[in-house]
């Protein structure tokens, strides 16, 4: 869709016959090349990289210096452009790396710092950059040396990169990026590695910015450090946010609008940055989803009221095709303290394949912490988690998916802006075989992946009885439906072990019963289920074994019947 817009508008522009509009159009295409890449960083991955103009500067100077032939041997402009892409990919990684360690605001500040020092270095390194005098920009050979010729060159590149980024957005990489942004904890639980993904994106985005820089230098015909203003960085950033995060078409329209706007209102030129900022504020307060949200007609259609959730336990065997191998998950004398609070104190328990093991206890007894320790979010100070005798690495939550350990969360952690289907497809991320490059270029293996993943996700949704809500945005669903979507996502892993954190909270009595049947069906396929719950009836109905926690220690362990009669458990938790 965005490509269509570009193609039509882009090819129509020359028909206006106004070569000045051609310059504006070229500029819009060049900015869009940069914004298309930055969109993946800001709009999809949610990293607030405000100072990205640093890469435009670098790309422009690299291209100009390599074509000028004064400092290094002269290269053809195309070679220089490729060099700019490579160098800026690396530099994009350097600028982006702090994102892996720093909080949002801190990272935003560091990108601003980078933008400043790149300009300072351009000013100071006179022998290469010409300092304040600047350098002439590259001139591309025929047929791109005329204004319209160059316009079509930039338009062509813009279309190619739009196609690439659209492919990435529609792939599991795009979904993973959005997951990191909005539901990082859940993303880790399905095996998405934030560092690996961000590294890829920063490289890609940096390369695109470098190419945009080279084209920019050619358009300007002469570059000086003061051409790369903070205003330009702001423009790129705001174009993405006005367009809407997680969209390609939105930021494309945003870029075109923001580039063209000052041209139509000459007296407004001095106020342009002020107006962009004001527009951003309005968008953030009123329509945080930007233009994309305004154009999202699909999600304005009303949903059916009084929906029922009807899981299909009989379909579990289509999702978990092969019965799970027999294995055992052991929590071995684990202790975990937060500051001075001992959340778990010397706890041991076992979960076997095909068994539903209940974990109950008063609030604050350490139930969720136990799940978190098994999932690898926290490292125990003492003891370890063993899978078939081998210790699971602590503090490595994104590795659990490979061990086929899946989980749900106490509060549903889903990506609200994505559809239910896309959320469930997240669960199958680790099954994807195609690489980033294959996804980017829409090669056959990527298509194969998507087909398999979509089918599996639809089946998983059918299992939990929500397949009719597949295309709906997740944040439109009711709370109980969200819990079942999480289960569907977990099922995508074909888990050997499934950790459920209070899945019945907020469900109606009928829904709880259906949940129970579903859990039993899953365990019959060989999955070991560890069920943390407060609903005693559910626990006693479906569990094979129950462990009771109190103050981080095991209070009692045994069959449901034994636990129900246990005096201390009644005192501490169940009541008479």
């Amino acid at each position, binding site marked *: 869709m965005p490509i269509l817009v570009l193609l039509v508008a882009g090819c129509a522009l020359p028909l206006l016959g106004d070569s000045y509009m051609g310059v504006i159009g070229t500029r819009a295409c060049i900015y869009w090349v940069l914004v298309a890449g930055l969109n993946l960083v800001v709009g999809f991955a*949610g990293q*607030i990289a*405000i100072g990205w103009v640093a890469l435009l500067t670098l790309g422009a100077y690299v291209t100009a210096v390599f074509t000028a032939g004064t400092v290094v041997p002269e290269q053809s402009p195309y070679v220089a452009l490729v060099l700019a892409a490579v160098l800026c990919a690396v530099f994009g990684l350097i600028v982006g790396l*702090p994102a892996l*360690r*720093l*909080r*949002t*605001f*801190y990272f*935003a*500040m*560091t990108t*601003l*710092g*980078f933008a*400043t*020092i790149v300009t*300072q*270095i351009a*000013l*100071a390194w006179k022998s290469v950059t010409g300092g304040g005098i600047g350098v002439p920009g590259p001139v591309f050979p025929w047929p791109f040396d005329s204004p319209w010729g160059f316009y079509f060159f930039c338009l062509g590149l813009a279309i190619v990169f739009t196609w690439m980024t659209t492919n990435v957005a529609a792939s599991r990489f795009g979904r993973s990026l959005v997951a990191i942004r*909005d539901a*990082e*904890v859940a993303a880790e639980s399905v095996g998405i590695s934030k560092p690996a993904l961000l590294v890829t994106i920063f490289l890609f985005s940096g390369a695109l910015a470098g190419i945009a820089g080279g084209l920019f230098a050619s358009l300007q015909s002469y570059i000086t450090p003061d051409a790369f203003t*903070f205003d330009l960085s*702001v423009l790129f950033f705001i174009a993405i*946010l006005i367009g809407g995060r997680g969209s390609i078409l939105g930021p494309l329209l945003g870029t075109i609008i923001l580039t063209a706007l000052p041209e139509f209102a000459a007296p407004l030129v*001095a*106020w342009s*940055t*002020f107006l*962009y*900022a*004001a527009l*951003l*504020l309005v968008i*953030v*307060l009123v329509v*945080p989803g930007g233009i994309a949200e305004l154009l999202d007609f699909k999600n304005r259609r009303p949903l059916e009221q009084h929906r029922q959730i009807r899981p299909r336990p009989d379909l579990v065997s289509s999702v978990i095709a092969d019965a799970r191998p027999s294995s055992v998950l052991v929590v071995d004398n684990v202790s975990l303290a*937060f500051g001075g609070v001992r959340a778990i104190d010397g706890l041991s328990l076992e979960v076997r394949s095909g068994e539903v093991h209940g974990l109950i206890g008063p609030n604050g007894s350490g139930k*969720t912490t136990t799940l*978190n320790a098994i999932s690898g*979010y*926290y490292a125990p100070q003492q003891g370890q988690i063993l899978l078939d005798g081998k210790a699971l690495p602590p503090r490595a939550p994104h590795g659990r998916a490979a061990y086929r350990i899946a989980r749900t*969360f106490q509060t549903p952690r889903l990506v*609200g802006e994505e559809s239910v289907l896309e959320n469930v497809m997240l669960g199958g991320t680790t099954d994807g075989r195609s690489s980033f490059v294959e996804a980017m270029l829409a090669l056959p293996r990527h298509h194969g992946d998507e087909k398999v993943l979509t089918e599996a996700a639809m089946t998983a949704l059918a299992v939990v009885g929500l397949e009719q809500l597949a295309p709906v945005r997740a944040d439109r669903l009711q709370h109980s439906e969200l819990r079942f979507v999480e289960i569907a996502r977990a099922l995508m892993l074909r888990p050997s072990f499934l950790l459920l954190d209070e899945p019945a909270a907020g469900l109606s009595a009928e829904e709880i019963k259906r949940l129970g049947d579903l859990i039993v069906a899953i365990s019959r396929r060989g999955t070991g289920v560890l069920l943390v719950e407060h609903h005693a009836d559910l626990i006693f109905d479906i569990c094979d074994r129950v462990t009771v926690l109190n103050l981080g220690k095991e209070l009692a362990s045994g069959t449901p019947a034994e636990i129900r009669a246990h005096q201390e458990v009644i005192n501490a938790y169940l009541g008479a």
Partner: protein
Amino acid sequence: MLESIISHGLALGAVYALIGITYNVMFAASRVFSFTAGMVGMLGGVLGALFINRMGMPVIVGFVLTLASGAVIGIVTEILTVRPVLKSLDQHLYVLSTLAFALMIQQLTAIEWSTEPQPFPRLLPIGRGIFDQQFWLPMLACALVIFGLEWLYRRTLIGRAFLAIAEDSYAARALGLPEQRLRMASYALAGVIATLAGFSSGEMMLAYFGNGPLLNFYGFVPVALGGMGSNRGAVVGGIALGLFQQSASVLVGGIFASVAVFVVFIIVLLARPEGLAGAATARRV
């Protein structure tokens, strides 16, 4: 040379520390970092020059009016850019709303005031010495703010209410504290501190719209390095930053000074993301 490094470095450091404290006060009240901290600092200088130089008011009147304007802008920041996004689930919107507002302030100043640094009035009718007022005024302001905040937090009820909101806003609300009003008051206080920083350093830094982003960044470095929420960390970090920057400027030259500051900033931050004195981040899961 050494006296220039010390006097100038300490003065700049005091300004950076004050902006760092501004960030901290806003953060304590709302768990939000605002891009407006440095901008309001810049306005302290611009408004001071506007009221005293251009409009001809006496120094005291201009001073009071500037601080009052800072309080008003602080309140507007809270109402317009912080309160609406605190309600939403997306924690990162505040970065965008405060950024947008900060840019609006900056551009408005550039267009309406001037794009060039303008002179700031001499505040006290004392002659020039080695240790000139343009240097010790910011330091005095910093000391006043630190002691003032200590007294506020320990001795007054409202100060303790601020601390309560910062510690645990749910519990504070449950106790009946008017969270919204206290947050507005905090932001007003932050605005006053920022304009005080800008006003006291006006002669040294001149009334210039470009001081906004400068103070935003250099005022944030003490917070990042000293640990977010820690005012003492901000002061130590600010002074250290000021001295380091001035030494680099004098010994090596202007451009390399800013590169040096930034490199140190990045390295320290990557080594200890929560700052040298800060607490580790809260539980994620």
